[in-house]
């Protein structure tokens, strides 16, 4: 049992905050809850005067943000008091459904709304369990309330991210190499950070309010070097020691070139880590598969002492890391040897031609990085000696969302693996890798000795290792044709357009979604998604305001804002920190008359559909209920009763909902093993994805039997660079630039610019609503700063003001934030800026056949718009 740290009384030891003194809560009318202006979910204190929300400040007791708040969080009051807010259930009267078409809303009563949905649900139950599709957002309890239906009905269609394109490789690779859900940098110790296609530590990304200050301390007080590799000279580049502009869709070449310098030119890698903790020494035969022990089937390694091959778990092994060996007449190379040979195909001069990053810069940065990793060094923390690797290559959205996105991401992640920085001080940290409280969740050694992530967040996504055997698809998202992908919701609109091509029988008749914006921000070409929505019998959306997605709904149901709703949430910890915590969200002010919590609405729908008792039983699993707090058949529980049972199931009788309601956050200490689990995990990390050989061959057979043209070239155990369509179009000069999206720290996440306080900021900053065009490109096109230009992609032409700048790659157009709204409910921001996603083609040529990612390289033709 860990020691509880009562945050109010004791500051967690890792809270590092220079600057002014601060006091705890300044008054009685400040209520602790959680901000929901983005998915990071910082803890806040909300001031209420005479029933009105009048201020919001960060909760100094909370480890996640330590009292800090970003612009978006601060602006949340204006989302809460949004005058365009939906207050009554409505149904459409216009049967014509499409992007920009007025649904002709008419108000209906709750009874009619609930009856309509319940009737559709009864039809699903009676006729076809697989005809329902659920889209929920984040970890809120409502996701479980709605998601419980999928286990009751036994259907696969619960999309838990708003975006069908979210997290295509980042989580897979996290699980695979670090055993956790999400990556952070151990800024407390890191001395060298390379950000590739991400603004980690500067702007956006998870944990803004703790990673930004810790990164600033590392940069300014400890002199951590920051290198930003990005097509856009964004906020991160602004703070970087070096900005290396890169052509989009070339990250794999950059990563392989980096590996080449480390492995082949400089010889910098963690031999001991690679030999003991990875499959680098595993012997691989000519067919690409492990050479296995005839008796046990275990992969063999070459023992340098006895000059014989031994199974991977033989305690007497002194494994050879590189080289070619004869094993019982079979010629075999170590996996590491194969990786070195693959990397050797990417000399920096070749990488320069692909990426535009100068060979001399790549060589210098890779060597500096390797030296900064201090391979072989250790550090003692709380009396425990740990490996010390203070250098990280961090990557995220940029490399991930591409055709061949796996290879971009995998090449970059291997840079971290070869220097042995995974989950150790100074290195690449993963959230929720190893947890001993409030539940035990620790990675274990699985098949072939490889690491398998445990419980915790690990159950939500399908894993790349060992993967699944492909088969003829039955699912609308073709999950069966993606044997190593985390999730494949991206495919649903494609299959809905061409069901006969894939032989999929399922047809969605009822879709229920939470208040996200799947149309404007979820996929790519909005018309593809709209076509799918149009094909569905009844689309029901819970809504705060009528956004672009709701304009395609049949029924919209008003729901509380985050300041009117209570949810229990989940426990969490900031990577490397001494404490873990659980923070709740609670009602600060009641919702307006007529607005009902979605959990109550769904409870009523379940009751009228005859599945409420089944849902309650299913909820016990999702909500992690334990006896004696289990929900029971026939039980009719209030929202607070359920919250109380959740709290007590997790933290015992003393920490029920009333404790959380008063304190907002529970904080406890973590062991060194939980904070830096790298040295305390048994399983090995792959540098060679041997399972991809089988997964690829199985898939090739299935698609051949189906007569489907399907590319299986990505099932390569090692990373390689392959160009995307836009890259080749640029080479052929068919387009003038690749459009990329980048984040501004004040418009991160789905709410984007639509908040009026944020919109007011964006109006004053030319990059927020304009498109970044490099001075040289602009000159060649006769475009001057502030000119209106038209950006034409194969699926959409949009008009935008040019922001002519030096801070973008000359073959790239940079589009910021989450703007370009067209829904009537976006009263303040309709028509401002560009909706980036709708410029992206959505078809098999632009979808990654391995991860199902949409390629985020928008092929653009740019012309000056004289109008």
């Amino acid at each position, binding site marked *: 049992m860990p020691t509880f740290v009562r945050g109010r009384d004791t500051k967690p030891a890792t809270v590092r905050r*220079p*600057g*002014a*003194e*601060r*006091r705890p809560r*300044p008054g009685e009318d400040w209520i602790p809850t959680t901000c929901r202006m983005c998915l990071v979910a910082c803890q806040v204190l909300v001031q209420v*005067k*005479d029933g*009105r*929300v*009048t*201020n*919001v*400040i*960060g909760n100094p007791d909370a480890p996640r943000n330590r009292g*800090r*708040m*970003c*612009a978006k969080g*601060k*602006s949340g*009051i*204006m989302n*809460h*008091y949004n*005058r*365009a807010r939906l207050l009554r259930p409505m149904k459409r009267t216009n049967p014509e459904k499409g992007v920009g078409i007025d649904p002709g809303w008419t108000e209906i009563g709750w009874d009619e709304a609930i009856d309509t949905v319940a009737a559709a649900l009864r039809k699903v139950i009676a006729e076809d369990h697989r005809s329902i599709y659920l889209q929920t957002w984040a970890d809120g309890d409502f996701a479980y309330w709605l998601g419980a239906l999928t286990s009751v009905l036994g259907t696969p269609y619960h999309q838990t991210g708003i975006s069908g394109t979210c997290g295509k490789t980042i989580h897979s690779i996290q699980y695979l190499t670090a055993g956790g859900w999400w990556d952070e940098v151990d800024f407390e110790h890191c001395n060298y950070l390379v950000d590739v296609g991400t603004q980690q530590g500067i*702007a956006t990304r998870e944990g803004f309010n703790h990673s*930004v*200050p810790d990164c*600033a*301390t590392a*940069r*300014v*007080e400890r*002199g951590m070097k920051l290198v930003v590799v990005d097509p856009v*000279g964004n*906020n991160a*580049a*602004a703070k*970087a*020691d070096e*900005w*290396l*502009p890169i052509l989009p869709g070339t990250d794999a070449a950059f990563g392989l070139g980096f590996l080449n310098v480390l492995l082949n030119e400089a010889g910098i890698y963690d031999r001991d880590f690679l030999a003991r903790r990875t499959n680098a020494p595993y012997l691989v035969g000519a067919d690409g598969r492990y050479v296995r022990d005839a008796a046990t089937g275990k992969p063999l390694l070459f023992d340098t002492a006895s000059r014989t091959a031994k199974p991977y778990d033989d305690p007497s092994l002194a494994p050879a890391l590189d080289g070619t060996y004869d094993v019982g007449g079979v010629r075999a190379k170590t996996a590491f040897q194969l990786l070195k040979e693959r990397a050797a195909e990417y000399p920096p001069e070749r990488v320069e031609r692909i990426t535009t990053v100068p060979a001399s810069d790549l060589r210098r940065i890779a060597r500096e990085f390797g030296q900064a990793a201090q391979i072989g060094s250790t550090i003692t923390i709380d009396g425990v000696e740990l490996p010390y690797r203070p250098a990280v290559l961090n990557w995220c959205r940029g490399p991930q969302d591409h055709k061949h996105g796996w290879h971009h991401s995998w090449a970059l992640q291997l840079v971290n693996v070869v220097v042995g920085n995974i989950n150790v001080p100074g290195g690449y940290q993963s959230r929720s890798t190893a947890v001993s409280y409030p539940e035990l969740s620790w990675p274990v050694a699985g098949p072939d000795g490889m690491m398998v992530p445990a419980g915790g967040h690990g159950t939500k996504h399908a894993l790349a290792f060992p993967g699944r055997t492909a088969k003829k698809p039955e699912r609308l998202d073709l999950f069966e044709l993606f044997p190593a992908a985390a999730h494949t919701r991206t495919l649903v609109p494609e299959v809905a357009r061409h069901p006969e091509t894939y032989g999929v029988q399922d047809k969605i008749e009822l879709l229920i979604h939470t208040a996200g914006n799947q149309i404007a921000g979820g996929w790519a070409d909005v018309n593809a998604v709209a076509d799918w929505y149009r094909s569905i019998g009844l689309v029901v959306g819970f809504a705060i305001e009528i956004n672009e997605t709701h304009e395609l709904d049949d029924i919209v149901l008003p729901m509380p804002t985050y300041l009117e709703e209570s949810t229990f949430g989940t426990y969490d910890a900031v990577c490397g920190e001494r404490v873990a915590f659980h923070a709740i969200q609670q009602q600060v002010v009641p919702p307006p008359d007529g607005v009902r919590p979605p959990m109550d609405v769904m409870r009523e729908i379940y009751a009228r559909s005859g599945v409420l008792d089944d849902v309650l039983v299913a909820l016990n699993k999702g909500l992690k209920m334990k006896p004696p707090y289990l929900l029971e058949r026939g039980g009719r529980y209030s929202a607070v009763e359920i919250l109380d049972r959740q709290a007590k199931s997790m933290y015992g009788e003393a920490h029920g909902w009333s404790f959380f309601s008063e304190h907002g956050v529970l904080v406890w200490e973590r062991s060194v093993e939980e904070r830096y689990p790298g040295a305390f995990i048994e399983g090995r990390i792959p540098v060679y994805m041997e399972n991809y050989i089988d997964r690829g061959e199985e898939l090739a057979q299935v698609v051949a039997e189906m007569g489907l043209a399907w590319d299986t070239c990505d099932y390569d155990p090692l990373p390689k660079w392959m160009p995307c369509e836009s890259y080749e179009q640029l080479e052929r000069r068919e387009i003038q630039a690749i459009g990329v999206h980048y984040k501004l*720290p*004040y418009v991160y996440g789905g709410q984007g610019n639509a908040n*009026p*306080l*944020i919109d*007011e*900021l964006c109006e004053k*900053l030319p990059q927020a609503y304009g498109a970044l065009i490099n*001075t040289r490109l602009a000159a060649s096109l006769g475009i001057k700063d502030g000119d209106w230009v038209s950006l034409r992609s194969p699926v959409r032409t949009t008009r935008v003001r040019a922001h002519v*700048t*030096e*801070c973008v790659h000359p073959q790239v157009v940079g589009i910021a934030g989450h703007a370009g709204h067209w829904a009537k409910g976006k*009263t*303040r921001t309709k028509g401002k800026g560009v909706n980036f996603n709708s410029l992206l083609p959505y078809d098999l040529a632009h979808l990654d056949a391995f991860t199902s990612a949409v390629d985020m390289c928008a092929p653009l033709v740019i012309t000056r718009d004289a109008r």
Partner: protein
Amino acid sequence: MTRLGFVVDLERCVGCMGCVIACKVENGTPRGVHWMRVLEREVGTFPNARRTFTPVRCNHCANPPCIAACPTGAIEKRPDGIVLINDQVCVGTMACLTACPYYIPVRYDGDGAYFDEITPYEETKYASFREGTAQKCTFCVHRVDEGRPPACVEACPADALAFGDLEDPESRVNELLDHRRYFRPREELGTDPSVYYLVGKGGGPLGGVDAEAVE
């Protein structure tokens, strides 16, 4: 004696605008009124180009030109150095803006609310704003008098803002000034501003900010 002042670390600042909105929500400034801003500009040529971020607000000068310029005597300097506009006296001539070398004061003309209809939050907050008066940063005097830091300091995700007594050698602001390179905006004019800007990494080479560009 106490002299309250700010230290702004240009190397830490990431341009996130957290301070801008923190100020807005704390003080409830109406649409079009910002007491706290972050100036952005671009320096250099590709690929050696970058954006810079410079948080600006009233400098609470020791020799405030605005006080001398104000025809109604509406501007006062407290003993702790905070310069305040008394909106019961101000008639909105904006002579203060003309006199201010930093172009800080703005006039509130009751431009109204953010939506077509005022929200309950705005109704409460705007009650303390008089139309036709000059507006500027107060150093969050209501918080300072309770011993709490200004809202921008509290919120700043980058810990780029420090607030404290410039006369106290032990204060955090002086600790920073002792160890870092710094400048004050347009010091040569003799305004004696109470806001300092730190440049360059701690003791190391100049990092993300072109000091020449902002000096």
